[in-house]
């Protein structure tokens, strides 16, 4: 199982475990505040925006162009921004910390 930590805008820390699916699905299924996934995971709404911890950013990798474009004008965008629906959960992510960008 891969250990994944979400930190919400209010500072709540949620340590979860999963072995498949996406970061967005994991967040939605565990009612993580700020992970809404309104479009269901087709990169259309940017309601699953997370900041990936620095040391894991290279593991997760750069977003594709469409995702980059969706994030470009977001109020909370940083150099470590990703959309959770575009990150598949794998063993490589074990220990990752994700800050939720939205309230």
């Amino acid at each position, binding site marked *: 199982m891969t250990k994944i930590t979400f930190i919400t805008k209010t500072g709540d820390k949620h340590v979860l475990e999963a072995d498949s699916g996406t970061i967005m699905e994991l967040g939605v299924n565990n009612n993580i505040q700020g992970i*809404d996934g309104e479009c*269901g995971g*087709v990169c259309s709404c940017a309601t699953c925006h997370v900041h990936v911890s620095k040391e894991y950013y290279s593991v997760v990798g750069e977003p594709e162009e*469409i995702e980059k474009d*969706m994030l470009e*004008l977001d109020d909370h965008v940083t150099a470590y921004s990703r959309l959770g629906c575009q990150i598949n959960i794998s063993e490589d992510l074990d220990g990752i910390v994700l800050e939720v960008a939205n309230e």
Partner: protein
Amino acid sequence: MQSEKTCIIIGGSHAGINCAFALRKEGWVGKIIVFDSDPELPYHRPPLSKTFLTGTDEIEKYALKSRDSYEKERITLQLGVVVESIDPERQVILLKNGKEETYDKLVLATGARPLIPEISGIQHAANLFPLRTAGDVKNIKQALSTKQHQRVVVIGAGYIGLEIAASIRKLGHTVTILELEKRILSRVTSPEMSQFFHELHRTNGVEIETGKEVTKIENHEMPHQVTCADGSSYEADLVILGVGIKINSELAKAAGLEVKNGICVDATTKTSHDHIYAIGDCTWHRNPHYNNQYIRLESVQNAVDQAKVAAATICGKPTSYDTIPWFWSDQYDVKLQIVGLASGYDQLLIRRELNESTKFSIWYFKKDQLLAVDAINNPKAYVIGTKFIKERQVVNKERLVDPNTALKPTFLI
């Protein structure tokens, strides 16, 4: 001790489920009970005409929330249960199974059902389905599984009809779309967009026939014979209806609530009756970004945003609906994103991108006001459009249509 309060939500799709969870977030401590006649664990609807139709995943894969999360938040689901009526005086709802349930607050998230047009023989056609629920798609998939290379007729060329056509083409079947109007998407978008999608479907091998009024469906068994007013006729192993919806406002009407082109609600989603709220596709509401005009929207965005407003209002936190509508559609490899409402536009500008033939955007204006943007494979245009509409930014139209001007907010004003 004061007994626990109850909030009942009728309708367990995007609006109802989001409202249930938002109620907890806003601090509702009492019971939350969601009723829906659909027996499935509530699911995302947009994939029904897309990946759920083409893929092999079960509907649970598309669940709005996991089963566990309902338990965790103490949200009771009453699925496969039909609500028969509302008694606003006694604050109870009556169920088809004879039981009744008392509420302190009631949220109507009743949505809509497919419109079944009056076509002779339609009720006897064995392989004819609408597409609104997971059950509908299961029927369609079952019908498609009986043999390869079927002839499918889709009646109606709105977004749903077109998405169905794209999905069924992907599965390798033959698709003919019959549209009543002179052009596809005529009720929902501009002629320019209609033309783009017409061409897209034609290139992908879909036959589109416009100006076709279907009058008759013959043969109870396959192939059905679909006949139009002009005498033309099409053989179909499967017929799918995509001619629009009828909102579920009967419960509200019978309860004496004000209903026009939807259940009338104010900016807080309250209906004409105290303690009763309405959210989602079924509402007739005002949009502050568009001169406060009354509108009805069939979209996930509206369902979710109204759900949040209702939850906050019910929990005593003053708030009002103030969102710019947005939509999306995926067909073949084309991603369409729409922000705003184009209706009433007096000018339309097409922005193309240098060396990117599959990417463009259509910008709709009323005088200097940007009303809406249709972005084709172009999320950048979509997010810039969203920003501009939100900020009521006046756009430099000359620069906008000049592909040599980079698509960046600072260059377009």
